[in-house]
């Protein structure tokens, strides 16, 4: 029974996830000002995360495929409820209070949207045609807009990315990609008017954070200073002045990479990027060697979404991308994103370990 349980794990993936979780605790100890209570909480979350990963890995890809419409529907209902009865958390409505704990339905959609897209596309022959594309676009667009309305730009982008990546993998024609890109470019100004002031400022200051060093550019500048001042070898654990003197905002959550690279330097940062690259590469390999279309699509989409997290987060911390609330997978302090990430990684393991010997 127990052997069966572990049979559905992928050792290389597991190992790198454990290393990342360990790093998370090390950096959190420093960024939280040596707050043991916070560390315990994160350790418990990691434990719960692995438990979810193991559990999801037990499910077969067929089961996951069957469940996809339900996951998506439940997510859609909850998202609508958030808008209706959601309580205000940090000035934005993101949380649903379920009595014992607060729940962020948008997180479900990070899995629900790519699952639904893969489910829909698997039912039709590929490559896509306009009709399927329109359905897929609606599946991606609907929840994204709901999340934008919350407003939570970061999560919305992640949900959209997960769906779009699934569509991309399904073989949308390059022509379409070109057209969509152009359409998005045209929609830019329209979107611009829909954005909140603070979001606009964040995007503007992306191009020149120093134009508003004490306002919108402040986070980015302090973060870049932290990263840059780390140098090759870093300032040493617990010795980052930017982190310890609390210059870095959100240093335990979204900007934890700034703390890490300030204290462990370029060497540490390269190691971490490589570690993430390994996780993503392993995920893409699993998708590549999967045996059915749904598995390939969902496996590839989840791997790429994982990478999207990493890229957006590190890009934001190092001043390449605007500040959007995207956590660094497995390392940032926080619960909900941990759960969905681990469930996604569990799906990858499920895909890899449920392969059947097939006659070629």
């Amino acid at each position, binding site marked *: 029974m127990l052997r069966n349980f572990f049979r559905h794990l992928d050792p290389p993936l597991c190992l790198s996830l454990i290393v990342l979780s360990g790093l998370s605790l090390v950096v959190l100890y420093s960024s939280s000002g040596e707050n043991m209570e916070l560390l315990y909480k994160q350790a418990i979350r990691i434990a719960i995360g692995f438990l979810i990963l193991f559990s999801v890995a037990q499910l077969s890809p067929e089961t996951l495929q069957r469940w996809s419409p339900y996951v998506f529907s439940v997510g859609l209902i909850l998202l609508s409820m958030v808008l209706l009865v959601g309580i205000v958390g940090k000035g934005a409505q993101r949380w649903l209070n379920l009595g014992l704990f607060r729940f962020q339905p948008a997180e479900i959609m990070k899995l629900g949207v790519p699952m639904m897209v893969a489910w829909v596309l698997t039912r039709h022959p590929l490559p896509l045609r306009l009709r399927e594309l329109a359905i897929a676009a609606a599946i991606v667009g609907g929840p994204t807009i709901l999340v934008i309305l919350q407003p939570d730009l970061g999560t919305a982008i992640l949900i959209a990315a997960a769906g779009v990546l699934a569509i991309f993998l399904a073989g949308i024609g390059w022509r379409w990609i070109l057209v969509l890109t152009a359409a998005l470019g045209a929609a830019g100004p329209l979107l611009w008017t829909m954005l909140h002031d603070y979001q606009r400022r964040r995007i503007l200051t992306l191009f020149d954070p120093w134009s508003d060093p004490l306002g919108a550019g402040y986070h980015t500048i302090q973060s870049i200073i932290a*990263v840059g001042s780390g140098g090759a070898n870093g300032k040493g654990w617990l010795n980052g002045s930017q982190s310890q*003197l609390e210059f870095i905002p959100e240093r335990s959550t979204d900007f934890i990479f700034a703390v890490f690279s300030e204290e462990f330097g370029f060497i540490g940062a390269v190691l971490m990027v490589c570690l993430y690259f390994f996780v993503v590469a392993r995920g893409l390999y699993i998708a590549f060697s999967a045996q059915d279309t749904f598995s390939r699509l969902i496996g590839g989409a989840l791997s790429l979404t994982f990478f999207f997290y990493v890229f957006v987060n590190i890009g934001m911390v*190092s001043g390449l991308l605007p500040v959007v609330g995207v956590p660094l997978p497995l390392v940032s302090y926080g619960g909900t994103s941990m759960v969905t990430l681990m469930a996604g990684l569990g799906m990858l393991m499920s895909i890899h370990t449920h392969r059947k010997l097939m006659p070629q």
Partner: protein
Amino acid sequence: MVNIRIKDYVRETNLIQSRLVISSIIVALLCLVLLGRLYYLQIQQHSHYSTLSRENRISFVPIPPARGQIYDRKGRVIAENLPTYTLEVVPDNVPDMDAALDQIAQLIELSDTDIKRFNAALRARPGFEIRTLKSGLTEEEVARFAVNQHLINGFQINARLQRHYPFGPEMVHVVGYVGRISEADLERIDRNAYRGTDYIGKLGIEAHYERTLLGQSGYEQVETNAHGRVVRTLSRVSPVAGKDIYLNVDVDLQTAAREYLGEFEGAIVAVDPGTGGVLAFASNPVYDPNPFVNGIDNKSYQLLREDKGRPLLNRALNGRYAPGSTIKPIMGLAAMEDRRSPFERVFGKGWFSLRGSTHRYRCWKKEGHGWVDLHDAIVQSCDVYFYTLANNLGIEKLHEFLTRYGLGRETGIDLDGEPSGLVPSKEWKRNARGQPWWPGETVIAGIGQGYTLATPLQLAMVTATLANRGVRNKPRLVRAVGDSGATKLQELGPQTIEQVPIRNQKMYDVVIEAMVDVVHGKRGTARRSGQGAEYRFAGKTGTAQVVGIKQGATYKEENVAKRFRDHALFISFAPADNPKIAVAVIAENGGGGSRTAAPIARKVMDYYLIGPPPPPEEEPGKEDDAA
């Protein structure tokens, strides 16, 4: 349906797999982008960001608390905080400090002392904390600086509170002063408590009650621009003002007392016997404490140090004088404590000799007082009586008894650096001088000469103890403390040390009656000072020799240079039956206690008990060179 498409498994697989390969390549490329960015920031631009991280734009600006104010007995401000313009700088924001100082020197006069002190301050604390270059800028200097401010980065003018002593010299020996924190101070204080504060109590009440007066500093988290100027405040923790202090001392009485000393150097200490509250604590001459607040310049300080009158010496606290005949009342108590009858008489023949010695210990009255008992001996200050008494008691008993009354011991006043004075003993002489005790030294100790030393404060407290019939209180300059602006004060109350153990309380009657007759009796040494008094008071004159007089020679004031003349002493309390004030007066080189010191004490008591005198009165008579 015409257009049925069949799922082509192989085609689909190839399609997705090719997309996965493309994705992998993109992922790898994006990883390289990230690594490239990190390389650019952490390796290529490292030194730039290192600098930025050091000179970060968020800084903590400490806010000094307002120092507690000091009020006198009647609520007049003795020490206050006045706003002043100060030129300040966060040293980290100035790349070339020497060049900046040169520039500033062209706009604002900077003395060598200013620069020296500033350089010391630079070393004392971390570079991100604000430092003062100069305070007390004139409006003109402020204007001149403001015009040129853009040329001088890092420096700014702020309005700060600065200590000011409105009564200047009059209260300096009580209140002392604050000064800039020196490097020596830094070694003994908690630096955090003084963040943002440049001043620390150096002397007097300001030093002794430093913790009460200081308060707690607060801070502001501010964002500064590239030139170190504050752009906006992010958060603020308010400072807590120091507590105000209310003195027992009455400025008017203190000022009047010092005025009464006139040209004499000396001290006057007046206390309320019942509480130990110090009503006046005057030392003459005085100096202005205000220049000390920001550091007095060397030249002026040198002048004060070299002044013959030694104004820096707080005579009331630190002046040590032979108490002379003022200890005779205590000697009288010692006699009775030793079960000697106060009615036992001694023949005052003008001098006293130890058995088997030809050395004559002379009485101040050459012809002698004739037969005197204890009462007469105190009233007329008969030296021979007390020579005999001291010789009979012996130095050990004498030492023990005088010490009981607080001589040779700190009074415990709320000031720092109080000396203990000295009541000699055989043991003391062996330890301090390595010499045996001579019987003759006992004899002169009986009239408060020789090794015996007492401070004016000690004499006042001994007098208060007599007035209290043995209750010893600690002298208290401070009556109460209170939060800034509070109406309800925390009264500190009297601090009683003990009831001096003595065989019989009635012995005080004998001594006090004699002391009353010193001023009111027909033959009292200070009878002129008692004339016309609206109340009865008790006193005792004293004269302390400054130089010894050769055997057979006569002390003639005219023949002695002023600084070798005897010190004039007087102790008294009034009213005799319900003492409200006890006074000790010492006029250095004043000649006799009865002629110089007693009238001063009377005036002080008059002032306190009756009120300020209407017009100035004429000079006291010139006779009764009693001691």
